C-alpha cells in the first residue's frame, strides 16, 4: 500500500503600496514611464544620503495589518538586509526584520505570521541571451521602481494545494484591493507571491524539507507551479531520494521547474538595526484609524450574500469586486421581492458576459441601470418573457440603454402563453428533425437538446424552456 502525502505550503506575498511617493524619499511612484526619471540622490544611494520614512506608507501598512486581523505593533524598527546586486543601490535593503508592524493575524482559514514594511528593489533588464544575467550582453537598471514601499505578508504553513493557494491568494488580493492601498496587479508586479512547499506523510505533524518558488506572476501559474512541485517532491520521496532545499523558478510556458540557487549558495544577509532611522511608534489614533476605516471586506461580504441565498461562486465574484457588489445591491434595492440568488446570477453571469461581448465595456460605464436590470429580472421571473428572450433584451439594453419593457414590446418577445400554438411548433420540430427524434425515442435523452434548440429558433426564444421540454417528451412518448 502506498503512502498518502500531504503538501504543506506557506506564502510570502509582496504588496507594492500605491502611495504618491517612495518609501524613503520624495520621488513619485510610477509604472511604465521612461527609465530612471523618478530618481533622486536618496533612491540612487549617492554618498551621504539618508532615508526619511513615508508616513502614508505606514498608514497604508497598518490598514493591511488591520484587514488581516493582526495585532498592530506599537513599536516599529527597521533593519538593514545586506546583499550586493545592481538593483539594490545601497547594497542593503531597509526592512523590518525584528519589529514588524503587524503580527499574528488570520485571513480565511490561513494564519498570518506577520507583515512588515520594506522598500522595493530597482528593475534590472538583461539584454541579449535569455533575459537572465548569465549569457547576457549587458544589464540595465531602471531605478524608477527602486524604493517603492512594499508590505511583505508572511503566512503560517497552513495551505495544502495549488488550488487552495490560488483561491486564498485571490481572496487576499480582493481584500487588499478594497482597502485602496495597492493596485495589487500581478502582471505589473504590484502583487508578487513566493511559496514555500514541502510534503509529509498525511497525518504527520513534522515538516519536510521545503523548496522556495519565486516570483510567480499569476495565481493560475502559482497553482500549476505548486502542483508541479508537489508532484516532483512526491516522485523524489517515493523513489527514496531526498528533497534538496533550493529556490526554484516555474516556467509556465513549459511547465518545468528550474533551480535558481541551492541552500549552500544562500545569502548571509548580515542583518543589523538601521542606524539612520529612529523607531516609529504609531499613535493610538493611527492604530484606531487603521481599524475603524476598514470597509466591509470580501470574506464578510461573501458570507452575508451567501446568507441571503446567493450561490457561493457568485457571492465570491461579487465580493471580490466592489463595483460589482454595489451594482448587485442596487438591483436588490430597486425591486422588492427580487430573488438575490437569481439577481446575483444575472449580474455575474448574463450582464458580465454581455458587457464583455460588447467591446469589453467596464461596469462603471454601462448604460444599464441597476433598476432596469431589476425590471428585466422581474419580467423573466414572472414568466412574461422567457429566459432566452431576456438575454436578447439585455443585449439591446447594453447596446443602447433601452428600457426592457419597451424592447420586449418592440420586438414582440412576450412569451408564447398559448400552449396550443406552442404544441404545433413542437410537433413541426419533431417532424423536421427525424434523426434526433429517433435517437430520443430509442433512449438517447441527450439528443432532445437539438429539438429544444429548433423550437427556440422557431419561436425566437419566446417559448418557456420548461414547457417546451414537457411537450417534446410528451410527443416523443417518454
Amino acid at each position, binding site marked *: 500500500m502506498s503512502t498518502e502525502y500531504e503538501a504543506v505550503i506557506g506564502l510570502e506575498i509582496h504588496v507594492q503600496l500605491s502611495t504618491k511617493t517612495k518609501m524613503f524619499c520624495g520621488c513619485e511612484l510610477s509604472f511604465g514611464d521612461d527609465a530612471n526619471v523618478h530618481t533622486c540622490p536618496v533612491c540612487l*544611494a549617492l554618498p551621504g544620503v539618508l*532615508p526619511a520614512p513615508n508616513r502614508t506608507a505606514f498608514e497604508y501598512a497598518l490598514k493591511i495589518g488591520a484587514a488581516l486581523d493582526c495585532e498592530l505593533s506599537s513599536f516599529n524598527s527597521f533593519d538593514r538586509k545586506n546583499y550586493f546586486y545592481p538593483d539594490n543601490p545601497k547594497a542593503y535593503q531597509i526592512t523590518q526584520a525584528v519589529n514588524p508592524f503587524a503580527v499574528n493575524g488570520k485571513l480565511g482559514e490561513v494564519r498570518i505570521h506577520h507583515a512588515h514594511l520594506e522598500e522595493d528593489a530597482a528593475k534590472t533588464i538583461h539584454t541579449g541571451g535569455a533575459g537572465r544575467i548569465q549569457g547576457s550582453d549587458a544589464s540595465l*537598471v531602471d531605478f524608477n521602481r527602486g524604493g517603492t514601499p512594499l508590505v511583505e505578508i508572511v503566512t503560517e504553513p497552513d495551505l495544502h494545494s495549488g488550488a487552495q493557494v490560488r483561491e486564498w491568494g485571490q481572496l487576499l488580493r480582493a481584500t487588499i484591493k478594497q482597502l485602496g492601498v495597492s493596485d495589487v496587479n500581478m502582471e505589473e508586479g504590484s502583487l508578487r507571491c513566493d511559496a514555500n512547499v514541502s510534503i509529509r506523510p498525511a497525518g504527520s505533524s513534522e515538516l519536510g524539507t521545503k523548496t522556495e518558488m519565486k516570483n510567480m506572476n499569476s495565481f493560475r501559474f502559482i497553482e500549476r507551479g505548486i502542483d508541479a512541485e508537489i508532484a516532483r517532491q512526491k516522485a523524489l520521496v517515493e523513489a527514496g531520494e531526498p528533497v534538496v532545499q533550493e529556490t526554484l523558478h516555474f516556467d509556465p510556458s513549459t511547465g518545468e521547474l528550474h533551480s535558481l540557487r541551492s541552500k549552500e549558495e544562500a545569502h*548571509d544577509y548580515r542583518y543589523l538595526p538601521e542606524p539612520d532611522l529612529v523607531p516609529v511608534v504609531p499613535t493610538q489614533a493611527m492604530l484606531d484609524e487603521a481599524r475603524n476605516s476598514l470597509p466591509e471586506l470580501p470574506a464578510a461580504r461573501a458570507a452575508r450574500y451567501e446568507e441571503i441565498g446567493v450561490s457561493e461562486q457568485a457571492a465570491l465574484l461579487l465580493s471580490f469586486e466592489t463595483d460589482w457588489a454595489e451594482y448587485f445591491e442596487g438591483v436588490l434595492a430597486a425591486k422588492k421581492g427580487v430573488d438575490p440568488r437569481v439577481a446575483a446570477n444575472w449580474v455575474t453571469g448574463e450582464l458580465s458576459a454581455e458587457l464583455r461581448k460588447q467591446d469589453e465595456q467596464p461596469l462603471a460605464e454601462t448604460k444599464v441601470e441597476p433598476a432596469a436590470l431589476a425590471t428585466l429580472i422581474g419580467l423573466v421571473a414572472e414568466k412574461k418573457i422567457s429566459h432566452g428572450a431576456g438575454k436578447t433584451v439585455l443585449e439591446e439594453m447594453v447596446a443602447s440603454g433601452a428600457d426592457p419593457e419597451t424592447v420586449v414590446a418592440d420586438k414582440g418577445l412576450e412569451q408564447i402563453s398559448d400552449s396550443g400554438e406552442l404544441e404545433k411548433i413542437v410537433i413541426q420540430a419533431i417532424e423536421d428533425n427525424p434523426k434526433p427524434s429517433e435517437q430520443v425515442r430509442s433512449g438517447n435523452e441527450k439528443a432532445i437538446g437539438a429539438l429544444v434548440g429548433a423550437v427556440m429558433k422557431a419561436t425566437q426564444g419566446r417559448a418557456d424552456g420548461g414547457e417546451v421540454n414537457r411537450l417534446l417528451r410528451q410527443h416523443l412518448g417518454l
Partner: protein
Amino acid sequence: MGNNTELLAASGAETAAQIAAGEVSAAEVLDFWLARAAGDGLNGYLWQADRDSALSGVADSGGPLAGAPIAIKDIFCTEGVPTTAASKILSGYVPPYTATAVGHLRAAGMPMLGKTNMDEFAMGSSNENSAFGACLNPWDTGRVPGGSSGGSAAVVAGGLAPWSLGTDTGGSIRQPAGFCGIVGLKPTYGAISRFGMIAFASSLDQCGPLTRDVTDAALLLAALQGRDEMDSTSVGIEGGIEAPSAERLDGLTFGVPRDLMREGIEAGVLARFEDTLIRIAELGGEIVDIELPHAEHAISAYYVLAPAEASTNLSRYDGVRYGLRASDEDLLSMYEVTREEGFGPEVKRRIMLGTYALSSGYYDAYYGGAQRVRTRIVEDFQDAFGQVDFVVTPTSPTVAFELGEKTADPWSMYLSDIFTVPISLAGVPAISIPAGLAEPEGGGPELPVGFQIAAPAFAEQKLLEAAHALEGAIGFDGSAALEGGLA
C-alpha cells in the same frame, strides 16, 4: 582697513565683525585666505575654491557670518564640487547636491575656501590613511595632525583658514584639534543634520566646528544645529546656541575618571591636564573623582560597532552608478576589482572586521555584545552626570606623534582615541580646548595638549560657557603655528 597680519590673527567671529563693520570687504578677506590656502604646505586641502564661485550668492547674503570663509572636510557633499572622502573610489566624484550642514553655513553667508584632507572615509587617527597623501602638523611637519579631520585641524592651526568644519565618529574632531592646538567641538548626536555627510558609522557620526577659540565654535554651532526633515535622527538643540560669556566656574563640578587614566598617558600630557584642573579650581569649580566602570571596554566595543556599520555603509561603492569602476568584465569582477583598487588598507580592514562581526553565528557574540557594552557606557555617563556637571580628561594620551610611528600597529593607533571614544558611544557633547604645550615623550620641541570637557546630552550652551571661562584662564597662544602652514 585690515592688513594681512590682522586678518591672519583674527578669529572667525572677528573677521565676520570686521566685514560687518565695513572695515574690510568680503572679497578682500576671501582673496587673503585663498592666497594663504594656495600656499598650503601641509597637504591640508584636496580642493580649493575659485574666487568668483566662492563669493557668489553668499558674501552679500546678510547672514550673521557673512563673508567669513570656511574650510570644509571633504566628507561633506558639495554640489558641483569634487567630494572624495579622501578615497580613490570617489576620485573625481562630483555630487549633485549639498549637505544640509554646508547649506546652513552658506545661508549664514560663509564662502567655502576649499575641501580638506582627511583619513579615507574618516577611518583613522592620523590622517595618514588619505588616498591623497598624509596631511602634516603645522607645529612640526614631521608629525601627524591627528585624524580623521586632520586637514580641517591643520589648516586652521597653520593659518590656511580662519575656521573649518569636521566630523567626529570616535574622536575625529577632538583629537586633531588637540594635536594642533585649536578648539574642536563634537556636539550631541542629533544636534546637527548628517544629511550629505558621507557615512562612516551612522550611529556615531556627528559634524562640528574646528576653531581658534570657543566663541567661534559657539557661533558655528549656532548656524549648524537644527532639525532636518532629511535626517530622521536629527533633533537640533532646543533654544539654540548663543556666544558664551562666562568667566568663572563657581558652583560647577568637574568629574575626573581616574581609573581610565592609570596608564599610557605621556608625562607632559598629564602635567598640562593637572595644571588645567588647578585653573578650574581657581575659577571656583570643584574637582571630583568619578567612575566610568565600563569605559575601559569602549575601544573594543567601538571597533566592533563602527566597522559593522561601516561595512554596510561602504557597500554602495560598487562601481555601478558613480565613482571608480575598475573592471567591467562581469558583475563579480566589477565589484571585486573596483573595491580592491578603490579602498585603502585601513578601510578594507574595517570592512572585513565589520562583515565578520555581523556574520550569521557571530552577530550576537560580537555586534550584540558590543551593543550591550555601549548601553552600559551610556548608563555610566548618566550616573556620572547625576553627580557632576562635566566629565574631564586629556583629549588624547599623547601629543602629536611622528608620521609613520603607529601605522604598522593599528591597535596602538586605535588607543589614541581612548578618551574620546567613550563619549562618542554615550552620544554626549564634548569639546577639546588647548591646555598648553608639552614635550613629546621621545623629546623634541613642545607640542599642544588638548583638554576634553564632556557634558550631558544637549547641554552644549553650558559646555561652551565652561570652556569659555577656562580658555580665558589658560590663555593659550597658538600663533606660533600660524606661519607653519605655508610651504
